[in-house]
């Protein structure tokens, strides 16, 4: 007698069969949400800033011209390092040319990410999201020269390889549900000692760095090898948390340290045992609130400064030379820096990945055309010669494609 029931009772009774709990484990990926959310923060900032003019011009050119013709010197209306005209005339600046993008093979799996790569450009690591029943476990992939070299299954959930070195030794972590670090070497996966910890990077000597303790709340740590016990890195008095995020070939470690109740800023642990906070760059005469480093290579560090005002938080992009202690501001169209190469070139992301080469000349990399709709790009790897990069696209419907860019 449904017409006698009011909407409330009728509605409840009618829909009751649809009540129920979703089966299985959640398939959400918090670290990816953060990476992509961070990109969107930046995109919005861009869309409201003056940099939009330069980006639009690049896109217009990229639509019709061969890719190698797109890059041009930075157009930011501010003092940036630019080569003297006579040098340009005498010796043309080196830059990446004829860049192409290819999707890395995934054995038929539609959705996959690239999470790291090695400085030689030969090795890339990532993970896949096979269709069908999902238990939160991600099969991991190691690619060599664009082909699948190995696939690995590790216990826990939301697994990732964060880095790989030129010998093909990789490190990463899994959630069990606390974080656990592990290493991949000679086709075998082994836990890295230390209990709850994150392994973030490995250099060619096999030294591993990361953080010890719960993720985002741990302290910076170093392992002299994948089988060694962790050694806590020294931090200033009053430090609440911190993390080592990358390691150079000479053993210099890059990370962040957060004083109690505050956000982190860049920190360096040098091979001679000394350690210090990275200086804060000045923007238009005003000292930044923080510096957030992204990666280190051959004595270069790239990252962004944070300037907080009452209304907003602004970011500016920088390259830092450890030997001189000097920052160099990057042109706006270099994008947010992700990695730096041994030759000092930088790869960042704006609407598409951008390589900033000698003389701050920027070259936008091609997008992946087969991906539908608007894509964001995230870069995880950059070779020492600045001509090979790997990362992934993220588009509508939370789709992802693992991508490899190669230039001459």
């Amino acid at each position, binding site marked *: *007698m*449904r017409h006698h*029931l009011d*909407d409330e*009772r*009728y*509605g*409840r*009774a*009618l*829909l*009751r*069969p*649809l*009540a*129920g*709990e*979703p*089966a*299985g484990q*959640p*398939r*959400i*990926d*918090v670290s*990816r*949400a*953060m990476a*992509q*959310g*961070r990109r*969107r*923060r930046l995109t*919005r900032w861009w869309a409201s800033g003056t940099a939009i003019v330069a980006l639009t011009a690049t896109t217009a050119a990229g639509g019709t011209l061969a890719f190698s013709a797109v890059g041009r010197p930075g157009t930011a209306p501010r003092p940036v390092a630019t080569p003297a005209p006579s040098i340009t005339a005498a010796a043309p600046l080196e830059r990446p040319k004829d860049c192409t993008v290819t999707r890395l093979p995934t054995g038929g799996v539609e959705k996959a990410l690239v999470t790291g790569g090695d400085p030689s450009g030969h090795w890339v690591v990532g993970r896949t999201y096979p269709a069908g029943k*999902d238990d939160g476990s991600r099969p991991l992939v190691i690619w060599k020269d664009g082909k699948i070299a190995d696939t690995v299954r590790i216990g826990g959930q939301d697994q990732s390889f964060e880095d790989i070195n030129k010998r093909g030794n990789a490190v990463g972590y899994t959630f069990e549900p606390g974080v656990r670090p592990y290493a991949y070497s000679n086709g075998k996966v082994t836990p890295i000692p230390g209990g709850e910890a994150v392994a973030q990077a490995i250099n060619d000597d096999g030294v591993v760095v990361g953080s010890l303790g719960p*993720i*985002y*709340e741990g302290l910076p740590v170093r392992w002299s090898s994948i089988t060694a016990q962790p050694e806590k890195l020294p931090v200033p008095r009053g430090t609440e*948390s*911190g*993390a080592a*995020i990358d390691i150079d070939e000479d053993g210099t470690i890059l990370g*962040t340290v*957060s004083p109690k109740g*505050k*956000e*982190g800023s860049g920190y360096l642990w040098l091979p001679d045992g000394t350690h210090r906070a990275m200086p804060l760059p000045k923007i238009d005469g005003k000292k930044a609130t923080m510096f*957030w*480093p*992204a990666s280190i290579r051959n004595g270069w560090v790239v990252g962004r400064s944070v300037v907080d005002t009452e209304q907003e*938080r602004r970011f500016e992009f920088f390259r830092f030379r450890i030997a001189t202690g000097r920052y160099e501001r990057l042109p706006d169209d270099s994008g947010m820096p992700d990695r730096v190469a041994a030759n000092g070139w930088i790869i960042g992301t704006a609407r598409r990945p951008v390589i900033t080469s000698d003389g701050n000349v920027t070259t936008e990399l091609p997008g992946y055309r087969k991906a539908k709709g608007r894509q964001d790009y995230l870069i995880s790897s950059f070779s020492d010669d600045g001509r090979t990069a790997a990362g992934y696209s993220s588009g*509508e*419907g*939370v789709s992802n494609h693992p991508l490899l860019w190669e230039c001459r």
Partner: protein
Amino acid sequence: MADGTDSEYVAYVHGRAAALRRTAYLLSGDVHQADDLVQETITKLYARWPRMGRVDNLDGYVHAILVRTFLDEKRRGWWKVRLGAPPERPVPAGGHPDVEERTVLRAALSQVPPRQQAVLVLRFLCDQSVADVARALNCSEGTVKSQTSHGLAALRRILGDRIEIGSNQ
């Protein structure tokens, strides 16, 4: 890298993931779509996280992001593509009666206009008040009530005599 408030974000998301996923599942009727919806919701949340200190009712705010993401995706026709089945798919003969009933109901619900679907699910499956639903959909309480009536009428029309309720009420 750790941005300080990142740990609060991670803690918040881990604490609310199950509840968000349940709502997403009830809205979409599909576990995989539910996970995608939650993923998109927490991505949007992270993008806005530095400004979240000013939000009085964070749970309500996040819930509204989820519902609006659901409506956006519906509008784009993404669900139809993902479902890969015509809206009026026949009920498999000889199946379990509960399964048949769910299948018929879900198919019928998917033909109701998206905002009405959201209202029906939030009110009758998620037990939300008219005021909460109004906040999530950014409309008046009167609109929620009228959308409820329209949605139920549409469901009745689509279902015809296929589902009888009330006999055991």
